[in-house]
């Protein structure tokens, strides 16, 4: 069973707006990762944030991690039509070598 949950399940915004997705997990982690999946393709790694980090940036992506609340968020700024995809968080539990993927957020950018 999946240990991660993402919120919202689906999100539609206008191009140029910011998109925020949230992720919760249940156990202590080594790191948390975000992936993107375009329709009909495999998942693509976007960003990794370690348990001792609180915020990380990569281009238009900003990830935060709150280990006290066991939650993370992914912010995509100035969204583009090409950002339309499903976004998954995956946590790496301590003592467990397997990533646990969330249920995903389906993001639609309206041109």
């Amino acid at each position, binding site marked *: 069973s*999946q240990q991660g949950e993402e919120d919202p399940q689906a999100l539609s915004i206008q191009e140029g707006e910011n998109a925020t997705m949230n992720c919760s997990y249940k156990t202590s982690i*080594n*790191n948390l*990762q975000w992936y993107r999946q375009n329709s*009909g*393709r*495999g*998942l*693509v*790694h976007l960003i*990794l944030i370690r348990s001792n980090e609180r915020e990380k940036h990569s281009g238009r992506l900003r990830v935060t991690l709150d280990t006290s609340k066991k939650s993370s968020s992914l912010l995509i700024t100035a969204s583009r039509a090409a950002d339309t995809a499903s976004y*998954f968080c995956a946590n*790496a539990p301590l003592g467990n*070598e*397997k*990533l646990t*993927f969330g*249920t*995903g957020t389906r993001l639609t950018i309206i041109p």
Partner: protein
Amino acid sequence: DARVTQTPRDKVTEMGQEVTMRCQPILGHNTVFWYRQTMMQGLELLAYFRNRAPLDDSGMPKDRFSAEMPDATLATLKIQPSEPRDSAVYFCASARDYYQPQHFGDGTRLSIL
């Protein structure tokens, strides 16, 4: 850029037939994963290997699924006999090590009639 390669891209076969899916991980990655993705269950880990040794296959139905790494450039996932409930997209992913970012192939879309 190095990529994980999966074959076949699509497979349609009848119930009871054997299905073999292949994966070429990225050179230098010592950890290989097999996942299954469905609308109902999402992404499920079936099995994974490190340095070609199977570490965990608890996600697989043992009676019909088997996963192997005959060499460092090839991982296989077999289903025998196949059943309609096995219809899904099967992904292979590789990583430099556990906890590291995983690189996914584009999957094998399997349909069992």
